[in-house]
């Protein structure tokens, strides 16, 4: 119940800020980026942070969602077309995830990292050469349906869905693979099945994120979904803490804010961004949140610790 109230408040406050133009168009673009990055990071965290499978292909799944949704909405430019587009894009990404995951996840170790990297490059090259995707020039004038309300709905649905999944027995099965694959298998967990499931759910959510991206920024090209985009998402996950959903959310917000703030220093922007990343990793090698979650109890605990520290001084 507390959760619902907090969510409702967040939605309402930002909606009012947008309606009263206190959030400018520029800031709104940052807000959209944050929401999309949250979906991407939380879904990659399910694969990498919780199930322990190192994937470098998240941008590939995102691009499938983006292109499928774009192509559908450009033909049926209605709100129904948009909803169908988002789900078709997510489904296409999930099917791709299944096809890549099934052979590579049977193996233990880092094969997935290489295979997923290869996959996302193949997808990019395919989009670069297809006629229907307009090659390197990309797709322009994609109908814009996404607004704060849609973003909020999809973001909360994916974040709540994944965090619920993690707490269920199926989620625990995924976590046990990260902890000790051999022991998990010996305890009756079908490790291949759960690795593939985590991968497919992650791909599905990345597809949603891609669809939202295409529909908000109304322009996509293959270069947007290269290797660097995958690394960007991975950076958010590692920075927030592997295995912490609230960590991913915090890191997505923090990095977007740093990046936006640094726009005023264009010459040294990337240098400062990198320096900030290095600094955070030096002082919090386990990520901002480690593998913990931000909750009311956690904040209370922090408060108590601070109090006892003061008491000692």
């Amino acid at each position, binding site marked *: 119940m507390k959760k619902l109230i907090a969510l409702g408040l967040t939605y309402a406050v930002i909606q009012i800020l947008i309606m009263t133009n206190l959030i400018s168009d520029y800031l709104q673009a940052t807000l959209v980026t944050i929401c999309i990055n949250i979906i991407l990071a939380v879904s990659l965290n399910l694969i990498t942070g919780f199930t322990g499978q190192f994937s470098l292909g998240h941008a590939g799944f995102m691009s499938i969602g983006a292109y499928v949704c774009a192509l559908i909405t450009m033909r049926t430019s209605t709100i129904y077309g948009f909803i169908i587009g988002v789900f078709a894009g997510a489904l296409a990404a999930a099917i791709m995830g299944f096809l890549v995951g099934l052979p590579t996840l049977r193996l233990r170790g880092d094969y997935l990292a290489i295979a997923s990297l290869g996959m996302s490059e193949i997808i990019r090259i395919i989009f670069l050469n297809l006629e229907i995707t307009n090659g390197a020039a990309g797709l322009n004038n994609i109908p814009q349906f996404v607004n704060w309300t849609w973003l909020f709905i999809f973001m909360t649905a994916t974040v709540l869905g994944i965090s*619920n999944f993690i707490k269920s027995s*199926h989620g625990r099965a995924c976590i046990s693979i990260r902890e000790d694959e051999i022991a998990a298998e*010996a*305890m*009756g*967990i079908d490790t291949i099945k759960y690795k593939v*499931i985590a991968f497919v759910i992650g791909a599905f959510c990345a597809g949603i994120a891609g669809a939202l991206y295409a529909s908000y920024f109304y322009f996509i090209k293959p270069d947007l979904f290269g290797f660097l985009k995958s690394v960007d998402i991975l950076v958010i996950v590692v920075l927030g803490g592997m295995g912490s959903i609230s960590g991913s959310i915090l890191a997505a917000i923090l990095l977007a804010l740093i990046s936006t703030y640094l726009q005023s220093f264009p010459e040294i922007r990337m240098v400062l961004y990198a320096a900030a990343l290095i600094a955070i990793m030096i002082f919090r090698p386990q990520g901002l949140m480690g593998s913990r979650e931000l909750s009311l109890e956690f904040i209370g605990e922090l408060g108590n610790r601070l109090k006892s520290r003061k008491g000692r001084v």
Partner: protein
Amino acid sequence: MTILNANKVTKSFGGLTAVAKASLKLEKGELVGLIGPNGAGKTTLFNLLTGIYTPDSGTISLYKDGQEIMLQGLRPNKICSNGLARTFQNIRLFKDLTVLENVLIAMHKNVKYGFVPSFLHLPYYKKQEQELINDSIELLKIFNLDDKKDELAKNLPYGEQRHLEIARALATNPVVLLLDEPAAGMNPAETAELTRIIKEIRQKFDLTILLIEHDMSLVMNICERIYVLDYGMVIASGTPEEIRSNKRVIEAYLGEEVNNA
């Protein structure tokens, strides 16, 4: 009534034959020991029985509800769900998870809810989760771990980690339990406590137990039969008294007698 029958199981790694035509039979309800010098292939044999390795040749059958289930070639999770559970010599707990979570994961095969309820947390889901938690706590009580259920597994003292390994194996609801050196590194008091627990769970869960152990006092004390493995071969089997006086066993442990020159 035979419950587990390994027939001429062989496994080589390159040129080394770790287990050579080893045959082993467990009767229902028995408590059997598996001993042998270091490197004799005891743990390899466990890994073959539980599917972590696939045997090069030989068969392994489990008899359950009057049916014969062939275990060789099955994946470890399938073997586990058929009722063969194990612990590990070098403790393999999910160490960054809590005691309760360790047991809950092993109970996974009892879960009836599908994926959709796990995303939505429907009431039906909550009821089942609560049942799982209650069952897990019941199980932890046997090992006096119920009041430590929220501790991380890695923070438990060594002896309790060993207990948790057994609890986790029991959570899979096995008919045959394989214990790999459960008393390793324990002091005599802890070993005595472990002996009591093994006897208790055997009664309570109607188990057949096969255990690898170097602690002879434990083996001779609770095992009804003993298999002795050396260089991957079964060199002797019988009651503790028979094993104690078996010439080949003494040779395997102490070396051959030197002939008078």
